[in-house]
């Protein structure tokens, strides 16, 4: 099993997401992340999925995705060049002044931002690719992460 990034352009209608997700669940594939949103054409949604799957079976799933009446296009971004982003919010313990200063300097050096300051914690936001987000989490982990929330990955093929 390895990780794949699949984008599916679909009709922006009720029930379509369930059809797409159903093809994965029926084969026992877990969807690691999922992002759905309108595209430049409001009648079309783009579903970006990160799935862990067996390559041969995934080939079949892609064909089945194409076969759905509401599917307009299926792109497998896994092997090509693409830009991807996800958004993360990390709530970190931050009680003393020194700790807060250290977190601020991490945030400044990584391009993240502090979006909320509480009594005993701060919330950091970053948008980036999987790699930069992972790096940020590791930098903040020693201070004590209280909660993490992240969107699914979105990705676009690059036309380099």
């Amino acid at each position: 099993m390895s990780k794949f990034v699949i984008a599916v352009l679909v009709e922006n209608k009720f029930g379509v997401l369930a059809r797409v997700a159903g093809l994965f669940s029926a084969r026992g594939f877990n969807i690691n992340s999922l992002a759905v949103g309108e595209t430049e054409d409001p009648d079309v949604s783009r579903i970006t999925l990160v799935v862990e799957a067996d390559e041969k079976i995934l080939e079949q799933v892609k064909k089945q995705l194409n076969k759905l009446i509401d599917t307009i296009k299926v792109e497998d971004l896994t092997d090509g060049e693409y830009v991807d982003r996800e958004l993360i919010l990390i709530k970190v313990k931050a009680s003393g002044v020194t700790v807060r200063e250290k977190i601020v300097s991490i945030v400044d050096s990584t391009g993240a931002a502090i979006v909320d300051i509480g009594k005993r914690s701060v919330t950091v936001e970053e948008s980036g690719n999987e790699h930069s987000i992972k790096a940020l989490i590791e930098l903040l982990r020693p201070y004590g992460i209280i909660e993490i929330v992240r969107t699914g990955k979105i990705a676009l093929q690059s036309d380099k």
Partner: protein
Amino acid sequence: MSKLTGAEIFVKCLHEEKSTTVFGYPGGVIIPLADQIHKEKSIKFYLTRHEQGAVHAADGYARATGDVGVCIATSGPGATNLVTGIATAYLDSIPIVAITGQVKSTLIGNDAFQEVDMVGITRPITKHNYLVKDVKDLAGVMKEAFHIARTGRPGPVLIDLPVDVQIQKTEFKYPKNVSIRGYKPTYEGHLGQIKKIMKAISKSSRPLLYVGGGVILSEAAKELTAFAKKTNIPVTMTMMGLGAFPGDNRLSLGMLGMHGTAYANHAVQDADLIIAVGARFDDRVTGRIDKFAPNAKVAHIDIDPSSVSKNIQVDIPVIGDAKSILKEMNKLAEKKSYTAWHKTIEKWKKELPLKYKDDNNVHPQYIIEQIQEITKDKDVIIATEVGQNQMWAAQHYIYSKPRTWISSGGLGTMGYGFPAAIGAQIGKPNSLVFDIAGDGSIQMNIQELATAVLNKLPVKIIILNNGYLGMVRQWQELFYDKRYAWTVLAEDMDQMCPDFVKLAESYGAKGIRVKKKAEVKSAIKEAIKTKGPVIVDFWIEREENVFPMVPAGESISNMMHGLA
């Protein structure tokens, strides 16, 4: 423009689609639709005795005629009773449109009385499905549903129709065209790929056509037959493909696979080129996949890209409609003699024919052969149940025309055959329709005897009664040390329950029992002579097995041939 109710629009759409034969069963939330259909003399409605009967009848009607079958049920239990039939149609790519009533649209999601999420339940077993929430969408949905059901790789489409939508009014305008940007099936085959197949044929010395139900669905039997004859290439058929090529032609090898003929399976294993047409390399055909057709290059013609290279790596895929592709191939076809290949096949045919013990007992194979013999000059449709009865009917009756063999292949649904035979009889009133049945399967939809009797549908039910769930018993005999767990329907035949003759009579049908070989022919003749539906209860050799048999998961070279 005057406004019409949803129910009125529905009926108008049926007319537009020329689908005026409908099977169904009522309930609270479908009354407006039932009421409207009742008012319209132009729609022929058949009330079955179970929703499963309605959906299989619609399916049998579709298989016999090539048109879309239509069935209607109420919400909740009526709708869930359709599920097996929808799945049956889905696995065999049969075009049906199923309509289910739904609770009032404002109540959906409330666990209202008789509410189930039918769109959710049928999502993986329909080609597409719809919930109509606004009457304004109904005509468009109907147009799309019929279009999707019958085009591309056909399949069932479900429309869930809330009761209030059936009553709401709107202006009726039937769309002229369908345009779905995500659904544009490919019909024309790529000419370069077609030429590649022809080139592979010219290089081959042991080619074989492997033909499936897709040829029947695309009405390509004529083109396929012409191609085989022109090129002199032998033909084997899947169970779904029976009738696509005349079984009595010298090029026919009959059915392949788990219960295929020995010569068909040997031919597959020995071929250097397999040309699959509208077939999907199902596991009942291939047996152990890595041992399948080890010497062959594989060409695959199919309208569904997801069928290609799914189980078997295909060397030359051609996506498109079998009929149009075969037409192209016929233009390029050349005759070759393949003398050695035909000689080998003839030798297999001689050495390993289908056979059974030819003694004085009542052997099911003999019954099938006698039906064939007696009906030679008639238009016959054979529907079947599932199990040994189905395999004997597939092996021992020779199908020479498409749409004369009606059997649940992909799902293997016991209880399918009789209601499907009813649908076929309605679609083809001049055909002589049989349901070859097992004593187990026939009990799964026997209630439809009322439908047959009351509508004067002269379906002949041939029960190959072994008092067992025979096919499962066969596996138990061969692989489970003869422990007949759950498969004994009668300890001995005198205890057979029910008495099928009395059962037939209680419905007002004719019942005939046959216990002796000498009575087989006259019973078949009597059944045919009888005007209405008939049950012929043949008490057959109880532990007769279906051979050849490839044990599940083994190479199709490893056939068990039995004792005969």
